[in-house]
């Protein structure tokens, strides 16, 4: 946690920084095109395919993968797993940045971004699932901001009064976060309930909201495991003894939790097929793809998590983590892009344009840079010396 390591880094022109710079420059070019020439100039969106990867990846995956915030804080503060405490701040920070970037990316996707507050403050379309999503994301982003704020206040110093108030709110914010996450994580799946004629029957089920909620839980747990690995590689010097002591236990415990939830999710996937007797679709091309997703990216990583926990095999757990994250991305892509509009002729199907991919990579890069900026300065991986006795 000393700052010497960072300062002795020297030149700004490291390979990572150069790549990040190129991505940022490309992103700025596409941004200018998007807001001067319109969506049509940089995207492959069409009247048949109004939602592309800016929704399928930036929104659906972004929100699911930011679920580590509510899962970790709930485990620590509500369910009493106090030993997870060192994991809470990195998870909350990842979640806050994730949601902030989801909202940022939406400004590219919607036609008139300056009206994004209309559904909340001007005219409410209460019959819309998207209204529920928007309202929850808006409030939850505020909650995550408040939950992240103590770290920033400790860093700057001299705000003990406000920090104290926020710390007292921890329990309330955590419960609010779980409620809001339950609602909007599931609602992202519920968005597709309105289009049974467009989504392939293997993916369309009335359980979609529940499946999105369940999968967000193991997505969050897996993100905490994966993010921890990356952070250890890059920010080890920022971590204190308490964080390092709890790190492996946290990964094992999260592996166990994820294995159980994934098993439940698998059962629900099968129930969804059984309920509407859709087994025969398994023997089609889409069926093979569905099995690829469900067996290859849910059942197998679930098994790895379970075995990894049983044998205390951290290596296996750390393989299953990123694997599960990939599975979540695959699932959200399948629902929003691959299995959506499945009946349209291939000429009318969607494939992302270079501009769309650049913006998505641009957004992720901003997230990584912001994360790096914050964890190398604020007390995220370590307890600030002045607040050793605090329970926050």
């Amino acid at each position, binding site marked *: 946690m000393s700052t010497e390591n960072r300062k002795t880094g020297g030149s700004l022109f490291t390979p990572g920084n150069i790549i990040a710079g190129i991505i940022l420059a490309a992103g700025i070019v596409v941004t200018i095109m*998007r*807001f*001067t*020439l*319109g*969506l*049509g*100039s940089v*995207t492959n*969106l*069409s*009247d*048949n395919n*109004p*939602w592309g990867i800016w929704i399928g990846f930036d929104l659906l995956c972004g929100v699911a993968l930011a679920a580590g915030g509510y899962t970790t804080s*709930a485990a620590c*503060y*509500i*369910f*009493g797993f106090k030993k997870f405490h060192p994991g809470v701040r990195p998870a909350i920070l990842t979640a806050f940045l994730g949601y902030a970037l989801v909202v940022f990316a939406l400004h590219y*996707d*919607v*036609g*008139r*971004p300056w*009206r*994004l507050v*209309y*559904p909340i403050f*001007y*005219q*409410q*379309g209460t*019959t*819309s*699932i*998207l*209204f*529920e999503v*928007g309202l929850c994301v808006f409030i939850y982003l505020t909650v995550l901001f408040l939950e992240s704020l103590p770290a920033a206040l400790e860093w700057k110093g001299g705000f003990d009064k406000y920090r104290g108030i926020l710390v007292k709110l921890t*329990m309330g914010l955590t*419960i609010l976060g*779980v*409620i809001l996450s*339950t*609602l909007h994580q*599931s*609602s992202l799946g*519920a*968005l597709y*309930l*309105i*289009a*049974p*004629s*467009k989504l392939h029957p293997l993916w369309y089920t*009335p359980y979609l*909201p529940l499946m999105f909620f369940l999968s967000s839980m193991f997505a969050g747990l897996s993100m905490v495991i994966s993010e921890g690995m990356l952070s250890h590689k890059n920010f080890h010097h920022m971590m204190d003894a308490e964080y390092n002591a709890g790190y492996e236990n946290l990964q094992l415990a999260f592996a166990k939790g994820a294995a159980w939830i994934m098993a439940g999710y698998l059962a629900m996937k099968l129930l969804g097929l059984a309920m509407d007797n859709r087994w025969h679709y398994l023997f089609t091309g889409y069926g093979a793809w569905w099995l690829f997703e469900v067996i290859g990216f849910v059942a197998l990583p679930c098994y790895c998590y379970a075995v990894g926990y049983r044998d205390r095999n951290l290596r296996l757990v750390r393989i299953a983590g990123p694997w599960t994250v990939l599975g979540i991305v695959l699932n959200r892509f399948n629902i929003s892009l691959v299995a959506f509009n499945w009946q349209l002729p291939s000429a009318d199907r969607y494939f992302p344009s270079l501009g769309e991919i650049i913006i998505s990579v641009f957004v992720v890069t901003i997230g990584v840079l912001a994360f790096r900026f914050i964890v190398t300065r604020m007390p995220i991986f370590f307890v600030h010396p002045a607040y050793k006795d605090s329970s926050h």
Partner: protein
Amino acid sequence: MKRRHFLGLLGATGLSLTAGVSKARASSAADVTGLPNVGGVLFDATRCIGCRKCEAACNQVNELPKPAKPFDDLTVLETRRRTDAKTYTVVNKYLPEAGKPPVFRKIQCNHCLEPACASACFVHAFKKTESGAVVYDPSVCVGCRYCIVACPFNIPTYEYDKALTPRVMKCTMCYPRLLEGKLPGCVEACPKEALVFGKRRELLNIAWDRIGANPGRYVEHVYGEREMGGTSWIYMAPKPSFAALGMDEHLGTASAPELTSGALAAVPAVAGVWPVLLTGLYAISKRKEKIAEEEKKAAVEAAIAKASADAEAKLAEELGKAEVANKRRIEVEVKKALEAAAKQAEGGEDA
């Protein structure tokens, strides 16, 4: 006066009286039985000749940009088209049965009774009006395009080429004209009465009368009577099927709001139950901690108490032992003294 015009005017007059004051409808389950006098249009594919006069009229009355090929160029019918931001309606050509003449179908907004677009819109930009028209308000539209995702008929389109003022574009059933007592542009232009405007329930009667009067000519189904909860624009098709005209026959009868009402109903349940459950869980984990703490404390106290009791007992025992030893020592000393005294006395006597 032609029957079509008569019905149309009848409908439009009635509507112009009510449309001004009628409150626009939200699409909630409460409205399912609403709008008994809702307007609509009946399309009879057996009458359509694919002349594209409706397309031309639509383009003109809605002041849409002129297309590259003129409307009297019928070669465009050879390609399958859909609505776009510059075209509210298109006529497509289908060949349902080999060797038989083609059949044409006009595509435009079906003006659902419970519109998916209105249900999906998070700023309430779409409204189902008493006239039958589903209208859109661009002044609130954020441009999320969830309406386009939601529409089961692939109708709404978007102005992707506008940087700052893109709008959702779709047929309005010529709502401004309806308010003036005029017919929709396409209905007025149709030379074959393939389109009839009127009250929806009367149009349904006409449709079923035609089916009854021409056995074998029509598919015995009025498309839009029940599809997705019913539409204002309803269709009749020649045999063999609506699917042969590119229409989805598996949409089901559930309206869009019915599809999402369950998920929306879960909101208050989650918001109500979660805080109670979570606070309960928190209390349980807290209590477990507290009990564990208390038990630990009690155990420590008991251990201390036992240790001190043991120590006291031992002390008492030791003290007792010490007393006995002392007594004995005193006794021995006394005995010794007595013996010494006795010896002295004996010696004295001897001396």
